[in-house]
């Protein structure tokens, strides 16, 4: 680990964060394209939810995590307050692990 690694990763990540914002400011985006930009964010976030729920290092993440996410998802769908959604998801996964579920 070196300062060069930190600076390259930091500068590269920041420039990518800024790039989208700059592009959005410079381009006049037609409504149809704006819909796609919005859908792209949805696609990325749902893909993130799916992979973070079910996979770990390219393999299956085990049952405790998806079970926790499922409980949180049902709670969110039933309009349970956000804080409780987070606590229920974490609590379910943690509880199952105490019981020996991987």
């Amino acid at each position: 680990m070196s300062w060069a690694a930190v600076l390259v990763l930091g500068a590269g990540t920041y420039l990518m964060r800024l790039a989208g914002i700059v592009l959005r400011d410079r381009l006049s985006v037609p409504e149809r394209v704006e819909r796609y930009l919005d859908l792209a964010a949805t696609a990325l976030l749902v893909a993130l939810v799916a992979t973070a729920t079910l996979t770990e290092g390219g393999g299956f993440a085990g049952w405790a995590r998806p079970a926790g996410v499922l409980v949180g998802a049902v709670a969110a769908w039933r309009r349970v307050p956000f804080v409780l959604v987070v606590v229920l998801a974490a609590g379910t996964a943690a509880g199952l692990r105490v019981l020996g579920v991987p």
Partner: protein
Amino acid sequence: MRSFSRTLAALHRDDLRDALALAAAIAVVGASFGALAGTAGVPFVLMVALSVVVFAGASQFLVVAVVAAGGNVFAAVAAGLLMNARHVPFGLAIGGTIADRWPARLLGAHLLVDEVVAFSRARGSGPRGRTAYWTCGFLLFAFWNAGAVVGRLAGSAIPDPAAFGVDAAFPAALLALLLPALRRADARRVGLAAAVVALAAAPFLPAGVPVIVGLVGLLAARTATVARGES
């Protein structure tokens, strides 16, 4: 400063509470990052710099894990950058929400994190969404870095965050934040396709890349639009 106080005035109590819930969870993950960095022998100042300057958890874990395993750091940095490429489309999607002026945009760009994007989007692109972006962004930044410092100092005394189920909390929180967007049928189609593609790609691609491949899910929006146009 006036625009800042105006932004702060639009802060909803519920939004602050919800952002604090996310921040608490991220502090736990930050602590485990700090502990891992200690185990990997990353010097304290370098660990803090990595955490403050990069502020993208998954790529930080990736780099430190490679260091711990004695791997090639620059290959890990390249993989981390690839992983963080998703921030470009995120910026395109919510760039207009962040701020109107450049100094604020330059600062706000650094707070562009998955959870902040989802948190802000769930509150629309108006003043409430903007305030939510900054509130959530500042809190996550503060709690992530504070957590990392605590974890680095506590070292092996920090338990595995999986023991708290934090790994389940984040996907569930993101999903809850996505529900308003998923009320639209085209967003549901795109989301479902993105999830299927990303999961199918996960065993074959390096960490983070399957998420970007999920953009293929956008094809589900297009097909349906064309189909509707023909009928």
